[in-house]
């Protein structure tokens, strides 16, 4: 199977007052139809800039794509004209953002905003577009869609707005959805609803999802392939089970250990010393070496930046001190066989054993 989207050594730079920064450095990633690929990392690691660069949504200047290719079905998006690119955005690739309040226009009704994209991409009449929009709201589980279409964003709650964003993004049946922190601003019970909805819609439409998040729980339950980003590079890439069972990169390892988990009552949390480096002054060599406890003082780590190397059939890590194959065929990475959507139980569990005797029979 060939990938739907192939990111090949993408590098992006920004010119700032303090100098040039490179928030995305030789990032390579393949996304196959129907697959969910997650990019995880802490703030400033470059995951959102990667996502925006795919759609060429970074402001240029100050931003600049330094090199690489982004192939959608073999067609390089980076070489398209702005006019051709507008055909891709919203139609082949749609995007939803973290903050549903700021990404919806407050002065237009929900209906106006959804139908605008539908009329543009599908060339249908106004009446048909409203019917498609109504169906789109219905698909994302919004009750009474006809009335809701006439409402404005401020009349809705955060969860409802995120549903509207999803409806809008999916109204033109995109093949790839880029979801940038789609549930970060939402409460856990609403987050569960939204992720459930995304999984359902993905199954029905065989849509691929690039999920950008910092939440390892969200990654574990939703992605098949995970790329871990640190200081503008992918430092580890693997199928989700491999990654969670055997993290190879010391940063990934540290990240997993420092997350408090339900039911884990140890007194102290593991930590990663220091802070994420400032992109204006990235450390030399491996960018993680000042915080790394694996090989303190190793000259190779200090001077030479490691590249991704294959450590087992579907696991890559960028560290000088992981055992791997001698010479690795690294890019582009093929993880197409990773398509196991894990079963997160959808039916409600039986709560009655909790109830008082009189309610149990």
């Amino acid at each position, binding site marked *: 199977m060939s990938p739907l989207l192939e990111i090949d050594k993408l590098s992006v730079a920004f010119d700032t007052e303090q100098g040039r920064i490179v928030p995305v450095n030789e990032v390579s990633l393949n996304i196959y139809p129907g697959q969910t690929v997650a990019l995880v990392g*802490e*703030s400033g690691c470059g995951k959102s800039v990667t996502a925006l660069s795919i759609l060429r949504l970074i402001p240029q200047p100050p931003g600049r794509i330094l090199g690489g290719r982004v192939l959608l079905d073999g067609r390089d998006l980076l070489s398209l004209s702005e006019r051709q690119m507008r055909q891709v955005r919203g139609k082949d690739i749609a995007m939803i953002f973290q903050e549903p309040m700021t990404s919806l226009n407050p002065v237009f009704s929900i209906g106006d905003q959804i139908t605008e994209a539908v009329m543009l991409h599908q060339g249908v009449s106004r009446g048909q577009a409203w019917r498609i929009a109504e169906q789109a709201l219905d698909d994302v589980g919004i*009750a*009474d869609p006809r009335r809701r279409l006439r409402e404005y964003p401020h009349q809705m*709650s*955060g969860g*409802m707005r995120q549903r509207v964003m999803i409806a809008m993004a999916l109204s033109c049946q995109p093949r790839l959805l880029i979801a940038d922190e789609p549930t970060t601003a939402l*409460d*856990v*019970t*609403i*987050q*569960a*609803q939204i992720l*459930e909805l995304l999984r359902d819609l993905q199954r029905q439409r065989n849509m691929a999802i690039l999920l950008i998040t*910092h*939440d*390892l*729980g*969200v*990654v*574990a*339950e939703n992605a098949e392939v995970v790329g871990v980003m640190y200081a503008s590079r992918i430092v580890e890439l693997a199928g*989700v*089970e491999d990654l*969670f069972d055997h993290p190879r990169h010391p940063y990934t390892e*540290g*990240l*997993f250990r*420092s*997350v*408090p*988990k*339900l*039911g*884990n*009552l140890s*007194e*102290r*949390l*593991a*930590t*990663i010393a220091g*802070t*994420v480096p400032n992109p204006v002054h990235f450390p030399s060599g491996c960018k993680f070496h000042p915080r790394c406890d694996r090989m303190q003082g190793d000259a190779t780590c200090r001077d030479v930046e490691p590249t991704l190397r294959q450590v087992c059939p579907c696991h890559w890590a960028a560290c000088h001190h992981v055992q791997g194959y001698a010479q690795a065929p690294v890019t582009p990475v093929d993880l197409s066989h990773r398509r196991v959507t*894990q079963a*997160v*139980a*959808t039916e*409600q*569990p*039986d*709560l*009655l054993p*909790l*109830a*008082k005797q009189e*309610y*149990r*029979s």
Partner: protein
Amino acid sequence: MSVAAPSLQAAPGVRDSAPLVRVRDLKTHFPIRRGVFSRIAGYVKAVDGVSFDVHAGKTLGLVGESGCGKTTVGRTLLRLIPASGGSVEYRGQDLFAVPRPQLRRMRRSMQVIFQDPVSSLNPRMTIGNIIGEPIQVHQIARGKDRDELVASLLRRVGLDPAYASRYPHEFSGGQRQRIGIARALALSPEFIVCDEPVSALDVSIQSQILNLLNDLQRERNIAYLFIAHNLAVVEHFSDEVAVMYLGRIVERASATDLYASPKHPYTISLLSAVPEPDPRPQRQRIVLGGEVPSPSHPPSGCPFHPRCPLSLQAAKNANAKDTVEIESAGARLRVLRICQQQMPPLEQKKAQVGHVAACWVSQ
């Protein structure tokens, strides 16, 4: 409608002599004003009858989703927002009755750490002045002594004392939160309200701050009211946990007990909704329908009844006369009549001593 007095026996392991902070039936109602004459058209009952104790050197975790009133509880009990009812006792003294000058003295020992380390530090003040201001205001030290105190506080929270002359924008989120903690520590408090202290931070920084707060508690016997929405963080950090829903506590127990055997269907749903960092999840998930209702129009009876999976399941076994049809999130559901009509009291459940929950159905 009368509500039975909540049982306030502390959970085992949490109990010691008198509590440091005693909150009883705390209420904070915000008026909704309408029209030209700002007529009061109703109230948002942000906090509606909350009771708990915080013991010296211990942590009470307060969890709930946005809008449940957890932040308002923290601010009301520090008298940063006027209360509409109830009482707060600090070391046996009624905090709502003490006159201003005395309140000011008491505030020394009660501090607060905020969620947003950007907006809670004055951008025009140096770090040294931010931390030194309370020291000066409360006349603890001045001049050189003050600077030494500031330096030792900075060292204690893991920052270089030379940072005292810098400004907040020069620091990262985690460092700013350390500054916020140093400021709270400046007056050697016995009680700190931590309002979502780590939710704005990255995971690797979050654990550093949690460990710091933990160490400080042990060193200085500080009591925390730890307000957060992240259930795993609260479990890790708290001795006792209270779960809030729409301005009320719906369940309270020792942390071990609450997480091992939650009794309230809302707590159960909340716990099941936390995504597990494990690709092969063990837990079954309950996906709640609908959203948290507005506190200006809370549902009748038990405020959780329109979303409650337990009442829904119990209604299937009950006599038709004991059930009632309701509309929730666009669907018609049948729930128990009692849940829709009467507010359940916070009562002892069949579990450990001190495990209370407000639910008609659960045992």
